[in-house]
């Protein structure tokens, strides 16, 4: 079970959150072309290791929380607000 530290509400149970995927993808400029949009919408690094991702606090404050989580151990290294840049630990 994950316990996610929401910057607004404090530590909360995973059950209150909706997962929203990889937080490192960036929407390209509108004229960036098909390949850039293909990458943005579809391709993912999908690491076995630290992953920076969105968890929407849907059953709480309804803010988007940025989380750095390990996809093998499920350990959480840090959480923050959408604009924060969170340090990613070395493997």
């Amino acid at each position, binding site marked *: *079970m*994950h316990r996610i530290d929401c910057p607004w509400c404090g530590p909360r*149970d*995973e*059950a209150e959150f909706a*997962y929203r*995927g*990889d937080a490192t993808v960036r929407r390209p400029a509108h004229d960036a072309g*098909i*390949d850039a949009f*293909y*990458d943005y*919408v*579809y*391709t*993912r*690094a*999908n*690491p*076995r290791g630290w*992953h920076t*991702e969105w968890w929407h606090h849907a059953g709480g404050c309804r803010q988007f929380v940025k989380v750095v*989580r390990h*996809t*093998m*151990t*499920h350990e959480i290294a840090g959480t923050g607000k959408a604009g924060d840049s969170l340090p990613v630990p070395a493997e």
Partner: protein
Amino acid sequence: MTRYSAFGLLTKALGGHAGWGRAWRDPAPKPSYDVIIIGGGGHGLASAYYLAKEHGITNVAVLEKGPIGLGNTGRNTTIVRSNYLLPENNHFYEWSLKLWEGLEQDLNFNVMMSQRGVLNLFHSDAQKHAAARRGNSMRLIGVDAELLDREQVRAMVPLLDFDNARFPVMGGLLQRRGGTARHDAVAWGFARAADRLGVDIIQHCEVTGIRREGGRVTGVETTRGPIAAGKVGMAVAGNTSRVAAMAGLRLPIESHVLQAFVTEGLKPLVDTVVTFGAGHFYISQSDKGGLVFGGDLDGYNSYAQRGTLQMVEHVFAAGVSMMPCLSRLRVLRQWGGVMDMTMDGSPLICRTPVEGLYLNGGWCYGGFKATPGSGWCFAHTIAKDEPHRLNASMTIERFRDGRLMDERGVGPWPWAQ
């Protein structure tokens, strides 16, 4: 290697089952092969078998990092069916089901294929219409499908909660030719049959790199040294992104965990496969008597082969809403597997931008039923360097070109597929 037969079984039984011998060899890797398949799950082993059997390519190795068949092949709920809506999927899965129907004779191995039927329940008018549409789509291409009303469902599975206040059972879509098979036996059967045709099955040999020269594959690096190859096929399920990254590829895939469960053994209770229409839950009964069931993905990226308790609770709640009698049972075992979820929920059997490198992956939570068909199509694609018409649309490029195969119509969210 001797053929298995009833007579052989009898004589071995009289001899106290001594002297069965190995089912496949344990060769050391050769310096070079015509084709290397990475991943000794059902798909990799089936691919090697059909390369040898259908295309006469026998200088083949299957490289498996652990023992064969302990990935998703040995972790799934063993449901086999071909009840898809989209024609591209349905033609492919129907061919796979036809191969299943003759698989035991073909492999000379008992995979315990049991065509006990797969019944998808519906609980609203809208769901009934969707089921009828899917059934019609199946029948149009010659696949069996029957729309059952409530009383016909009751005759098959009397212990459902027919009058559930929120989700009354209104009927079901039945595919009688669907059913279950023994998952481990599928890996072992393909391994033994491929080995007989000359394929080297090399266990405890992890691929750590993919060698390339001028945009072409030349072999692989492994924990047992480098091995050269003319062609390399990947069939590594949950590890698809990691192995493809060894050749510089970035794919429309995320790895997610799916859990499954088995209860204590019972007298016969469910003699078909039933899926709930109002939540993600599916159930069948194994020959040992345990009820085997599963639900939805945990819903976050994971390589952990284990899930969290929230989903356990969710699956049990769905199960008890569908069949209240389950509430008294004890669950004996629970486990997880890592799904290679694509962005449209459909698989990939295709060439890649690297010449001589082929991809079999993106099986999501439904690839067990695909095992023979997937191996058959992947072998064709590798041998001929072009897809068979059955897998022609299962490419990576379909995402870029806007030709998705989104069976559920949920959009590019792998955790929602």
